[in-house]
Structures are given as structure tokens and as C-alpha cells.
């Protein structure tokens, strides 16, 4: 079903996620994450300053914004990998402030990284098996007695193979993860995260460094997650794929949430246009800098409109 060979089927977007006007900090009908007043500064520079943010359950939410907008820092804060200067947030009602990263993951909120962290000197299969939760054999004393964990390990292995097949990595299962290509590592990291049966999957730039042939299949995988009942939050700065798969878009700039909404309306939002294309989008910098006569610029605009 999820193959890069079949043509992408447009899937139904989830709607009705918010209550009231789609503005920054809007309340959601069924939020999975609620964050309040989260601030993080790095030596005077404010990286994140989010007043209020809710992430809708059972939908795919994209966190977009230009480089340096604080997307990854917010990710790190929400997953316990960094500590905020102030603020609080909950995941499915559990307060997560000050909860260490591994406990956050155990609660069912698992993340991937922008720069892939495939464990290079472990085999692909071992990478996958590492992802499974609640393994008896991972406890110290039990690990010494294989009969206590062998059965569970086999079950985990089976599940790992299923996922690997789905992600077309099953033939690589005995190779060291270091031998995979960049795109395959992204896939492996995502598959590994799924081994823990998460309820919220957080993907930090899943498409960065992935070749276009793989992009389509990655998108399909992300859409599949939603179909399987998971919530997805991902960071991306390429709007192309955001429009394709996201049900909800949160736009950040300079550490703040500047806009929220469904992909279509967000892209029409002047705040977003500003954040992405510069404040005064209508002004042509070529004209401002005197490189082009105003008339030429107008012509260009016309040609675009005609399209």
C-alpha cells in the first residue's frame, strides 16, 4: 500500500480540529499536547517563546517556519531533551515539565532527529529491536537468563521484520546501520520509533537529505501513521510536503507561534507570507535595490497571475 511506485492517492484531510477562529494559541477539540508559557533563551537570544499551543490528537500537524525560528528547540523542550527557562506542558493530561526524556518516550511520545541518529555499529535489526518497549531482557538480572526473554525477543523480532518490510529495509536487516544511505537511515529511524508503539510521533525534518524518489514513500508512511490512529507532529520548512499531508499547520518565527490553521488558509495568511517571504512581500527587492526598473517587475507579476 505504501509504495513509491503507485501514484499518490490524495487522502482525506482531518478537519474540525479547532474551536473558534484559527489564530495562534487556538483551543483544540481534542488536544494531545497543551503547552503554556514555554520560554527558552540561549545567552540572551530568545529561541522559543510560546504563550499557548495545543496539538490536535489523531491528526498530522506540521510545525513550519524559517531556519532559526525555534522549531527544533521547541521539539527538544517538548520531548525533555532540553529544559526551558519557564513554562509548563502536558501530554495526554500528564504534566511533562521536568520529566526526563526517556520517561517522556515511555509515555508514548517518541521523536526522531533532524540529523539521523541511526546507531551505526548496530545492525539494522538490532536498531529496530532497541525500539521496543517493556523488554524483560533489558533489565539487568533478567538479561543473564535467556529463557526469561527469548520468547519476547522473538516476538519483537517478528514485529521488527514486519515494519522493515513495510519500509523496504528487510533485506538490509543484518547490515550495520552505518552502511545505509541517508534516506534509508531516515526510514530506519522512523521505523525504529514505531517499534515503541507510540501515540504521538514527533519527526524533526523527516525529509531533509532524503532523495526525491524516497520522499513520496516517506510521505505515505506518515499518512499511514494517522490511519493507524497515531498523532503526528513534524517539523519541516518545505511547504510542498506540508500542504500535501498536514491537517493542521503551526507557523513559528523568531521563537513565537505566529499563525495556526489548516494548510490552505495558513498559506494565505499574511503573517505566514511575511515569515516566509519577508515582511512586505509585495515589494520587489530588485526594484528596491535599483537592479530592475519598476515596469519589468510589474510584468513579471502579471505573468505569474496569468498562470
Amino acid at each position, binding site marked *: 500500500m505504501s509504495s513509491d511506485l503507485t501514484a499518490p492517492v490524495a487522502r482525506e484531510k482531518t478537519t474540525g480540529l479547532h474551536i473558534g477562529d484559527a489564530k495562534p494559541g487556538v483551543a483544540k477539540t481534542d488536544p494531545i499536547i497543551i503547552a503554556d508559557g514555554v520560554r527558552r533563551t540561549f545567552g540572551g537570544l530568545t529561541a522559543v517563546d510560546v504563550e499557548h499551543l495545543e496539538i490536535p490528537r489523531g491528526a498530522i500537524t506540521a510545525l513550519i517556519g524559517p531556519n532559526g525560528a525555534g522549531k527544533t528547540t521547541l521539539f527538544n523542550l517538548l520531548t525533555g531533551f532540553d529544559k526551558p527557562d519557564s513554562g509548563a506542558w502536558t501530554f495526554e493530561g500528564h504534566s511533562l515539565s521536568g520529566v526526563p526524556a526517556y520517561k517522556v518516550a515511555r509515555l508514548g511520545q517518541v521523536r526522531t*532527529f533532524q540529523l539521523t541518529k541511526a546507531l551505526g555499529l548496530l545492525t539494522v535489526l538490532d536498531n529496530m529491536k532497541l525500539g521496543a518497549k517493556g523488554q524483560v531482557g533489558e533489565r539487568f538480572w533478567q538479561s543473564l537468563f535467556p529463557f526469561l526473554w527469548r520468547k519476547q525477543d522473538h516476538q519483537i523480532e517478528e514485529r521488527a521484520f514486519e515494519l522493515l518490510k513495510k519500509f523496504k529495509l528487510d533485506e538490509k536487516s543484518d547490515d550495520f546501520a552505518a552502511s545505509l544511505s541517508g534516506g534509508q537511515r531516515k526510514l530506519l529511524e522512523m521505523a525504529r520509533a514505531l517499534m515503541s508503539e507510540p501515540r504521538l510521533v514527533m519527526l524533526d525534518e523527516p525529509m531533509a537529505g532524503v532523495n526525491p524518489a524516497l520522499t513520496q514513500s516517506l510521505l505515505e508512511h506518515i499518512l499511514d501513521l494517522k490511519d493507524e490512529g497515531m498523532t503526528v507532529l513534524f517539523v519541516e520548512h518545505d511547504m510542498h510536503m506540508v500542504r500535501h499531508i498536514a491537517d493542521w499547520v503551526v507557523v513559528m518565527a523568531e521563537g513565537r507561534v505566529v499563525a495556526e490553521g489548516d494548510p490552505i488558509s495558513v498559506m494565505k495568511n499574511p503573517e505566514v507570507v511575511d515569515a516566509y517571504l519577508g515582511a512586505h512581500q509585495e515589494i520587489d527587492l530588485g526594484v528596491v535595490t535599483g537592479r530592475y526598473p519598476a515596469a519589468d517587475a510589474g510584468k513579471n507579476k502579471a505573468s505569474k497571475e496569468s498562470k
Partner: protein
Amino acid sequence: MPTLALIVAFLATMLAFTFLAGVGSASADEIDTDKYQYRISGNVQLDGKPLENIALTIAGNGVDTTVKTDKNGQWAVGVPEKNATYTVALDENTLPTGIAVVNDADATDETPNIKDAEVGPGGRVTVNFFIGEGERHVTSFADQLVERIVNGLRFGLMLALAAVGISLVYGTTGLSNFAHGEMVTFGAVMTLVFSRGVGLPIYLAVPIALVLSGFIGYVMDAGLWRPLRRRRTGIVQLMIVSIGLSLAARYTFQYFIGGSTTQLVGADQRPIQLFGSVSMSIIDMVSVVISIVVIVAFAMWLLFTRIGKATRAISDNPSLAAASGIDVDRVVRIVWIISSALAGLAGVLYAYYRPGIKWDMGAEFLLLLFAAVTLGGLGTAFGALIGAVVIGLIVEVSTLWIPADLKFAAPLLVLIIILLFRPQGILGRRERVG
């Protein structure tokens, strides 16, 4: 905070041990007699009866040892030098009440509890005190503190010479150089070779040793570290290579100078009393002046010269430095030469401070260097400078409360505790995840 509680408990236990030991142990009647071949000994008696647990401090020529009498009233301390003078001070607080050290016959010494002991050609001397009823003579706590602080600054400045070098190397290349201690030893050993060996006067031998130290730095960079950098060897690998180098160098010194301690010319100079209970020999004073002058010159170099600025730029951001047209390899080579020469100088001064040159003298120095550099933040030369002075002070001042043979343990403990609160080091930066 169970972590903190555990640490506090651990430290408390250690402190308790220290105090208990101070009260309880009694049989430390012979110290360093197997380490050094010469000795000062004595017998403390009151009207022919031996006094047990009387504390004596033997100082001079870098020795600073406290010893207690055994049940026969006897004590002995090993010292590194013969034909040298040491100061023996009896701690009157440890005498029975109402008893003090008194002057015999018609002498009018104001401090009869402090005596000079000259270890002659025979290598042995006996020092005894006249003890009877009388008024006590003690060095006040304030005087002791001042003396320790002066010594601490002196030691810290010397440490700083080597610490700024190891820090620069770390900053520019990422290498935690475990062989830096051997570069310290190298300077001392070369001075020995050219003064005692070749027979040059010390004021010629030292500069030659420093030039050779700088040259060794160049050779190490060109022959070992630069090729490894080219291969993009990882920092852990580099660190372990430096450990191998340290071992090889350390035993090479032992191969040539043997296992004993050898003194440089002038190590036996008499200290001159300066103020309070502070006294230094001419060489000590010259050492302090040299340390200060060299460190100031080094700081000027780093702050204001073109190469100095380039060095800081590389420590800050090596790839941007290269993108600015700085020949990183060349600057790193200069850093190696300078830090190696500074380590050599520290070695010469340390040889006078310890005193004596021994094949593994750099190894004991290295950990203090690491402590200093880590305290100030890895990679920042000025941090290392401050860290070194702090470590020097901790080493000396801590002996007011803890046994002198634990004085090198104190700064290492301080280091561990500091890293508890700032895992990235005092000036280190935390990196973003992901």
C-alpha cells in the same frame, strides 16, 4: 536530590576520616625515609622520659613534612639533599600542658622551638630540643595562612605556565594531551643534562633546555599530531595515543636518569626571611618573577599579536579561521612550540619547588594541570590561568587542615565537585540536541 545527598554523605565521611585520623593515628614516626636517602631524626624527652605524639614540622628545600614521635619519643624524616639546611619546628601545642621548648643556659633565642638542621656530608643529622616548664612559642594562624597563600600563589603561577599551554593545544586541536606532563619533565631533565651533565652554568642551561623543549613540541606536532589530524583521527583515539606517548616518554626519562631524585644547582640555597613567617631563597624569588613576567608576556602575545589573535580565532571556530585565510596548521605548530617551551619552563621551576628531578615528576603534575584547565573551562587560556592559581592556592592552603601528604588530593576533589554542578565545565558551552 538523592545525588547531592550521596555526595554530601561521601564528603562528610571523608572529612570525618580525616579528623579521626588526626586524633587517632600515632605511629607515623618515620616519614619518607625510604623515599629519600638522607635523614633528620631526633628524640623528644622531658626529664629523660620520652614524649609520644609530639608533632614536628620539617621544612626547606621543598620538603614540608609533619611527623609525630613514637612511644620512645623518636622521629625521623627522609630528606632529598645533603649539605643542605632544613628548618625543624616543634609544635608546642602537642606538648603536655605547662610544658614548652626552652632555651638552654644563656641563649636568648626568641623561638627556641624552631631550629635549623644542617644535613652534612654524612647525610644524617639529629635535632633535639630542650623541653621544660615555660612559655610556648607558636606561629599564629594568620602567619601560617599568609605563608601558605604566598606559597600557593607561587605554585599556582608555575602551574599556570604549563596549564595555558595544555589549554591552547586543546582549544586549537581538541587534543587532551596526557603527554603534557612529560613535556614538563623534559624541560627539567634537559636543564639537568646541560648543567650537571655538560657543566654549563645554570643561566645557560635553562635557556638551552627551553629551546629544546620548544623544538620537541615542533617535532611532536610535525611527526605525530599533524599526520593524525590529516587522517581525521577521533579525539578519543588521539587522547589514547597521547597516553602511549606519555608512557614511552616517562620510561625513556627513567632509562636515562634512573629512578632516583637529582637536584639542580642551587636547590640547597638558604631561604631568606621576608616577612611574617614567609621565607624564600633567591632562586625562589627569581622563579616567581620569571613566572609573572612570562605569563604577562604570554597574555600580551595572545591578546595583541596577529598570531595570538589567530590562535584565539582557531580555538573559537577552526573552520571559520581557515575560511579567513589563516593557515591553521602553521598556527597550531606555533602553539605546540610555545606550549611545549612553557611546559619546559614550568618543569625547571617545579624542579626547584619540589625539589629535585625525577623521571615521573610530570605525571604528578599532569593531574593538577587537568584540574586547573577543567576548572577554568577546557580550551580557554585565561580560564586555565585563573584555574591554575586557584589550584595552587588550594594545594597549599588546604594543608592548614588536612595532612600535607594529601595536599594533591584536595584540588582533585574540588575539581570533581565543581563538575558536579557544571557538567560542561565552568566556561564550557552546552550543545543543542538534534
